[in-house]
Every structure is written in C-alpha cells, then in structure tokens.
C-alpha cells in the first residue's frame, strides 16, 4: 500500500468511526441516579423559632442509625449566651440530643459554668447540619470520588467506596462530617435522601415542633420555602469559603460561625 493510499483510507476509517461514536454520550451517574434533577433542595432554619429541645437530633440519630452513645451527630444545636458584662458562651452538650435541660454551660473537660440569670443579655439556639453546598469542598478533595453531589443538590457518601482517609472531614469548614463509629467510613447529613425520594420530609424537619427547620425546592418559585428565602433577610454560614451553602438562616447572628 502506498503512503498516499494509506493516509486516504485512514481518514476514511476515522471519519466513518466517529459518526457512530458521536451517538454515544458519557453517562454521568449523578444525573442517572438523581431522583429528580428539576429539584434543587435547600434548607431553611429560623433561629428565632428554635427552643433547643433537641428533638431534631434525636429524630436524626434514630432515623439514620447514628448511635446515641457516640459523640458525633449529623445535626446538632448550639446554644449562645451573651452576658451583660460582655462575655460570650457557646455549648452543645452531646450535640444537644437530649435538649438543653441544664442552664449551666458546658466548657469541656468536665467543667461547667453557672450563669447568673440576671446577668444574661441575650441567648439563642442555632441548629446546624450539612449545608449541602453548591460547590462543596468535601467532594472536591475525596481521592476516590466516594462522596458526590447529586443533581438535586444533595451531597452524599458512598459507604461501599469510602476509604476512610478523612480528607473530606478536614476540608469541610462546618464540621458537618465525622467517621461513623460502626460503618467506619465518613458520614454526614443526607437531608434524609431516602425519605425525600419518597416524598416525605426529612426526619429533623418532621420532628421540629416549632417549624424552625424546613426544606424546599429552591428551583420552584412557588414553593413556600423558596418564597421565604427570596423575601426574608436570610444569611448563610461562613460564606468566605466560597462553598455556596444551601442551608439558609433567618436571624443569623454575626458571631455564629
């Protein structure tokens, strides 16, 4: 075969092969497995309504098999107390799974601080959970792609693939991740994806007696939660990291980090 002929035939083969190949598309598992890509889940916390009962934490731990004895949690509630003499105290004993039944502040190392009620300036509770960020730092750093963001906006962990290196835990600016004490892999809030996909509310939203926690589809302009996020003055946690959190807070104090 001459060189000219060889080149001509090669081009023909390449062109011929590229036509059927172009019919193939790369399958993106995120798209295939997302329950409904038209939905973009967002969370709304109204800190003014939270009373620190801890029902949400209890419901979450029960629903998602995170042992009560384990000192980690997918969601937790923080208590902020400001005294009139300009001191600030924060605590979240056992992630507030039993609620805030004691008025003294947990200082860690088994130490507690009693605060004179007359000295309390202001105090409030802030529920926290995974922010299911739009550009999550955790999924970026996973060396094996075991954690990923679904097309409906939920960040999940594949328990069968996680190697347990802890890089995602280090990368999360919100401390939302931990090692599951039994599964021995990274674990985090899933917005109760297994419930959402059945049309149910997530466990914590369901358990909250005061509607301090709510969820909605931010792509649906008529969704009441979307309306609230659009019309109220809402804030997000630590926006300086550029992660674009999808958990919005009404009444967020500047000191809450």
């Amino acid at each position, binding site marked *: 075969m001459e060189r000219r002929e060889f080149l001509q035939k090669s081009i023909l083969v390449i062109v011929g092969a590229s036509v059927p190949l172009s019919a193939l598309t790369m399958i993106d598992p995120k798209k295939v497995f997302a329950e409904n890509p038209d939905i973009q889940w967002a969370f709304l916390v109204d800190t003014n309504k939270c009373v620190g009962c801890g029902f949400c934490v209890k419901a979450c731990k029960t629903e998602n098999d995170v042992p009560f*004895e384990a000192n980690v949690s997918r969601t937790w509630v923080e208590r902020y107390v400001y005294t009139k003499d300009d001191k600030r105290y924060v605590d979240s004993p056992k992630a507030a799974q039993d609620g805030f039944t004691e008025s003294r502040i947990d200082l*860690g190392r088994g130490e507690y601080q009693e605060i004179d009620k007359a000295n309390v300036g202001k105090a409030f509770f802030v529920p926290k959970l995974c922010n299911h960020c739009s550009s999550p*730092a955790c999924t970026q*750093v996973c060396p094996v792609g*075991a954690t990923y963001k679904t097309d409906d906006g939920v960040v999940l962990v594949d328990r069968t693939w996680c*190697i347990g290196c*802890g890089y995602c835990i*280090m990368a999360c600016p919100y401390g939302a991740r931990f*090692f599951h*004490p039994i599964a021995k892999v990274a674990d985090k809030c899933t917005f109760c994806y297994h419930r959402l996909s059945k049309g149910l509310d997530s466990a914590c939203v369901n358990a909250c007696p005061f509607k301090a926690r709510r969820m909605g589809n931010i792509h649906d302009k008529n969704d009441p939660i979307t309306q609230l996020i659009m019309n109220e003055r809402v804030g997000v946690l630590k926006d300086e990291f550029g992660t674009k959190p999808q958990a919005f807070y009404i009444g967020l104090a500047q000191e809450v980090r």
Partner: protein
Amino acid sequence: MVGEIAQHAAMIVHGEAWTVKELFTLPNEYIYWSIQIVMYPYMTGLVAGAFVLSSLYHVFGIEKLKEIARFSLVFSFALLPVAMMPLMLHLQQPFRGIHVMMTPHFTSAIAAFGFVFSTYACIVATELWLVYRKYFVQTAVALKAQNNRSAIDSFRMLMFTALTLGAWDISDEAVKKDHKACKTMAGIGIPVACFLHGYAGFIFGSVKANALWMTPLMPVIFICSAVVSGVALCILCYVIVQEIRKFMAKRKIARWANDPTAPTIEELEGAKHEEVMISSNYLMYFMIAALTLEILDLIFRGYTQVKSWDILREVIMERDFTKIFIMQYGLGNILPFLIMVLPGRTVRRTTIATVLVLFGVFMMRYNVVIGGQAFSLSFSGFMDYTLPIIPHDLETFKEGLFGAMTVAATPFVLFFFINKVMPAFLKEEESTH
C-alpha cells in the same frame, strides 16, 4: 460482658481516644489526623531529601560526594515503601486503599499521589539499576564460574542473573552509557522528588477550612524541610555505618575486612570526614531557606491579622509555645545551626547537629499537622492531642507510639536487606558511578 465492652468500644468515635476538647468545639470535631499523618510527610520528606543529596553527585558532578551519594540513593530506595505505610495505617478502610489508584478522583490532591509516587519509585529503581548493573554482572559471572555452589550461592546467582535484565555488556563504552543515562535519570528525578514532596505540602496547604494550613507557601516550606531532613538522615546514617565498618575492620569481623584490599581504618576515617563536611554545608543552606520561609509565614500571619489570627496566636504563642519555639525552632533549628556554624566543626559535632535537625523537622511536621487541628472551626475552643502510648486496641496501636515507631524502624530493616543485594559501599573497581 464481653459483648458490652465490644459495643462500648464501637461507640468510641475515631479520634475520641486521643482528643481532649476544651471550651466550645463542634460536636464532630476531633483530631482525626494523628501521629501517622505526622509520619507521612516526615517519611516522604526523608525520601525526597535523600534523593536530592544523591543527585548532587550524579547531576552536578560533585565528586567528593560520590560515596555518600551512592549510600543516599540506596537509602532513599529503602525509605520509599515506608512513605506509603503511614497512609495505610491511618485509613479507616485500609483494604480499599487501592481505590486511589483504580478510581482516582483528580480534583483531589491525594488522588495523584499514587501516580507521582510510582513515577518516582520507577526513577529511583532505574537509577539504582544503572549504578549497580556492573556489580550485578560481575557478581553473576563470578558465581557462575564457581564449581560447587551452595544452595544460597545458587539462589544468589539466579537473583543476580535476573537483576542484570539480560544486559551483560560491561565494556567501558557500555558503562559510560550507563553513566550518562544515570545522570539523565537523576536530572529528571530532582523535579519529581520535589514535586512528590511539594505536593504533600499542597495536600495540607490547599485545605481552605484550616486556618493554619492554608498558605501557598506550604509546598515550598515542605520541600525545603524535606531536603533538610533527608540530608541530615543520610549524614547520620552514613556516619553510623562508617563507624560500624571501622569497628568491623578493626576486629576483622566482616568477610571483607580480611581482604588485603580492604580499606584501612585511616582511609575510612578520612573519607568520612570530607563527605560529612561537604554534605553538612548543603544541609545548612537548606536550613536557612526552610527557616526563612517558616518565619516569613509566621510574620505574615501576625502582621495581616485576619479573622483567624486571634485563635492562631493563642495556639502558636501560648498553647504550643514550647513545641514550636523551644523544641522546633530552638532545639531543632538554631542550636544545630550554631553547632555547625561555629569554627572547628568536627564529624562528631555535625552528627549531634543532624540528630537535632531530624528532631526539629519532626516537630515541624507535628506542629503543622496536630497544631492545625488544635483549634475549633468555631474559633471558640481548643483540642489537645495526647499520643496513645500503651495500646488497648488496634486503633490505638496503629495511631499510637508503637505504630509510629514501626514506621520509623522499617526503613532500617529494609536497608539491611537491600544492602545485601546492592551494597552501599563498593570497592572502586566494582562501581561504575
């Protein structure tokens, strides 16, 4: 009862065993990256540093470093597998570790580790083969010529024959070609070694959530301190091995000591002195670079005083003051520098300095890895790390004193075996480079 204990142990979250929390820390915060992650950059640093020292001779032709260069190359090879060890020991799912190679997720800084590391391993192995090819051929030929071989010698013959990879030509021309190829490999090796370690720095420096780690200087700081620790370890081991050789030559313990061509004690002493002096000069240059960058980083943080400075200042200046300023900078940098820089430097003084330098670099890794986790993401609380000493389960063994010691001891065990196949000290006529 046993079941109860097992259940209770299962409820201990990873990290809880060695973390003491103080004031307000988020419920999920623990020191997740413990002593093994301190060992990881320390060991990779030693690998990279040892290789850089060997390249000084191979690439830049610093003849006086010939012997220590060959030693460093063999030692670097012994250190290589150990860079992986701490990572494997720290994984919660160690059997899935291979996923990093099989399904790498390239937006992650860790994902490329397997590839960079393997490339580097190939380069070191190639270079070693080029250096030792002549020795392999000579040994294999000599063993083949023997009439009644013992079982061990037969095995050695097979092994050395295999190691020649069928390249039996040891004419001057062929050896010259080896030398040239070796130089090229060492030349490629330097940037790869720096990349390997700079990239370990990137793994930390790119964690934006961590106020102490996040700095673009991190990779450069890591490279400089890597070279410092690698050179220091090579000098130290070289001196120790030479001392052992001297002892053996004196007592005529080793087989080679009875050989009439064996180096005399004076020769061993003379060679050692010169090589140690020159290497320690390079050690000092890199120490100056490493220290300058570290201090620059500290000053910059103190001067700019961004949001995180309040908590960082408390960690650096108060809680970890002894670990950072006394142990790392004082004992690990300034003191050994003074020991080496004062006039009338001797091998003994340099050796003491290298021990201090190695300690200093270890403390630097410790202060970065553990110090970075010493404060809460809420900036309102602290976490204290207590190294598990007596292990009470697998986890406290792996991520405790004994786990770290295992990692630290392995390269020496490996060196012992590798040295049997590729002796770090060859007589002139056997060696090509």
